[in-house]
């Protein structure tokens, strides 16, 4: 087990929407489905403007090994395919589907034949499932393990440590049977000997539910984890469950672990059981500007504004709107942004909560250092970054930073330390590339000199 308690911060919980079951919202007039909702190559559209589509129909195929196919959650007609400015700052090809409200299910939807590891991995790939906890890494790639003996433990991430978000909580409560079917699939095809549910102790009802469901099952355990942000961070979770820290530049599998979000596992199990791929998401809608916070089941591609409207609209002008939680969420430039595969929450904040606090001078109190789960020194990284000191950034290992936000959260001077870390990573990369180029140049020069000497001798 974990030898030491990793640092973190006591972020406010604000799980206002945990107690109520999610509501399915009616299909919006238009779905805008981006072709890049995952890490890796964008998917390639298979439909053209004018085509009619049905629920569960594949509209784009995987654009490479690290990629994922995309399905539509509404029936209707493809209007256009064009680039749309996404929250990441790039134009992403997007399929616009005008819905007809018929919601006729496509005849392609049928349970896949799963008999062995290969067919299981194919099914995971075809399900369109990516890391639904927010990262969006294609799950089929994560599970494509060369040697199954490498897997010592699969951790099912039910930590849900971000404030506000309760969509995983709802999945655990409402789709517990699907999650348990997913557990059975992992045991059968990936031959996993140890499966651990990691759930923060602020969700006692989820812990109790899975303790009951896994009672007497061999190789499955439920671990109640302290409610300390970022408990659900992959490295933190692996450390707290297995006692091993993923080394820098390595993968969880290098320490024998795979982490799967609970909602991701449920989506895989649903596809294997019913053949219905990933077409909709349970999304927490909350924040100080939202009139009726709740969990909503939304077709992927639904513009945010329709979802907020379904929740009674705004009680104050939304000045900041986020994909995901307030600790790591991404703020969006407008309300046209669609619900993505990896969206687990959309939060809208009023003016008071939206404005970044005034930044004052660093007082060297060391709160950022004490808060960092990975023992980094954000205050020192900031100084090194301002001095453009690549060697020092290398020494301080800014590359390890997972951008969880604990340092910025804890800072009494309200300095944007995560932002600085992100920028410092670029400075470090440039420094390391320059160093490498210089070393190669010196090597080439030496070789040329040697060749010259050999010639003259």
């Amino acid at each position, binding site marked *: 087990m974990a030898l030491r308690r990793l640092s973190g911060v006591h972020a406010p919980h604000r799980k206002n929407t945990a107690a109520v079951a999610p509501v399915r919202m009616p299909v919006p007039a238009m779905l805008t489905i981006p072709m890049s909702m995952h890490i890796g190559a964008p998917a390639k559209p298979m439909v053209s403007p004018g085509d009619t589509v049905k629920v569960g129909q594949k509209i784009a195929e995987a654009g490479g090994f690290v990629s994922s196919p995309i399905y539509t959650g509404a029936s209707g007609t493809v209007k256009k395919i064009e680039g749309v400015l996404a929250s990441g700052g790039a134009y992403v090809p997007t399929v616009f589907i005008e819905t007809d409200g018929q919601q006729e299910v496509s005849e392609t939807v049928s349970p896949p034949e799963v008999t062995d590891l290969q067919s299981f991995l194919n099914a995971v790939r075809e399900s369109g499932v990516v890391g639904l906890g927010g990262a969006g890494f294609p799950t089929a790639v994560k599970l494509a393990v060369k040697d199954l003996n490498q897997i010592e433990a699969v951790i099912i991430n039910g930590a849900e440590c971000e404030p506000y978000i309760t969509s995983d909580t709802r999945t655990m409560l409402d789709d517990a049977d699907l999650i348990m079917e997913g557990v059975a699939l992992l045991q059968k095809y990936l031959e996993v000997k140890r499966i651990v549910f990691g759930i923060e102790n602020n969700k006692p009802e989820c812990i109790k539910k899975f303790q009951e469901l896994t009672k007497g099952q061999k190789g499955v355990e439920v671990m109640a984890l302290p409610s300390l942000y970022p408990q659900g961070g992959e490295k933190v979770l692996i*450390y707290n469950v297995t006692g091993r820290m993923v080394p820098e530049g390595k993968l969880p599998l290098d320490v024998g672990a795979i982490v799967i979000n609970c909602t991701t596992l449920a989506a895989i199990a649903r596809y294997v059981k019913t053949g219905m791929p990933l077409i909709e998401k349970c999304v927490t809608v909350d924040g100080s500007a939202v009139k009726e916070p709740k969990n909503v089941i939304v077709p992927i591609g639904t513009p945010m504004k329709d979802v907020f409207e379904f929740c009674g609209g705004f009680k104050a002008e939304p000045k900041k709107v986020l994909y995901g939680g307030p600790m*790591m969420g991404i703020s969006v430039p407008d309300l046209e942004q669609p619900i993505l595969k990896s969206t687990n929450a959309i939060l809208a904040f009023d003016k008071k909560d939206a404005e970044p606090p005034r930044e004052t001078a660093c*007082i060297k*109190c*060391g709160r950022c250092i004490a808060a960092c789960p990975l023992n980094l020194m954000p205050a020192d990284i900031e100084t090194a970054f301002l001095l453009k000191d690549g060697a020092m950034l290398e020494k301080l290992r800014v590359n390890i930073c997972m951008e969880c936000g604990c340092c*910025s959260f804890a800072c009494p*001077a309200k300095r944007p330390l995560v932002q600085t870390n992100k920028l410092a990573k670029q400075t470090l990369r440039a420094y390391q590339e320059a160093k490498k180029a210089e070393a190669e140049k010196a090597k080439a020069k030496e070789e040329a000199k040697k060749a010259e000497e050999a010639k003259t001798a």
Partner: protein
Amino acid sequence: MSENMIVSVSPHVRSGMTTQKIMAIVLIALIPAFAASIVFFGARAIAVVAVCACAAVISEYIFEKITKRPSTIGDLSAVVTGVLLAFNLPVSIPLWMAALGSAVAIVVVKQLFGGIGKNFANPAITARIVMLLAFPTAMTTWTAANTVIHTGAVDAVTGATPLGLMAAGETAALPGLSELFFGQCAGCLGETSALALLIGFVILLCTGVITWHTPVVYVATVFVFTWLIGEDPVRHILSGGLLLGAIFMATDYSSTPSTAWGRVIFGLGAGIITTFIRVWGNYPEGVSFSILLMNILTPHISNWTRSKPLGMIVEKKGAN
């Protein structure tokens, strides 16, 4: 971008702690010692504290006005510096000297090095040392503490500090341990009452403003060291400015290390230097000097005690 929405980098929620709140908590933690100073040294203690605090704030305001920098008097750090300096002065100090000392602390030690967070030495401690060298007589004229609550009617009598008596070998005149603990002895304004300072320590610890490392290690080092060389360890830790220094001055953020091990080393070093000065040095008290010397060593301590990132892979030397 549309609809006038704010786009910023995460996190979008911050803790409620601010620099101003931290300084306010420090001021609250200083209240018990302030109350004790009024009880033992009379109403003049209020005047000294008020003059120091006002002079500190005014000099910070004027300096920032002249150098056209945004004013930082709102963060209360200047008030803390002023009050801490006042706590390190005898109650009989002429008020103009107290004001001058405050100005030195703020302008020379803090602002000339870049303001809050940038000063390498503790402003109050350094200003106290400057005053000790500039006004040796006024700075070492001690007033005996009142045995009853001061009425203002009786003129104060001068007395020697416990450490002064110890250095002079006049052990017979030493105050008892309970008098030392409650603060009924001669000394600087805010340093005499161990009880009041310990209440402040608990406040600072419970609010997370400081960690235990420096104060505990500092005091423990003095205790063990003086005990080893045959002095009275209890009397040593209760006398002089040790508790005031260990709790409020050696925990100053910008002039001390920010990692746990760095703070342990700081406390250890300060404890050793304090004992050396007290026992073998020319001055009866060594807390100020020891903290200043450790302030100077702080950048090195910080370099030695950098925290080790988890999962860090260290390239072996000579690997390529």
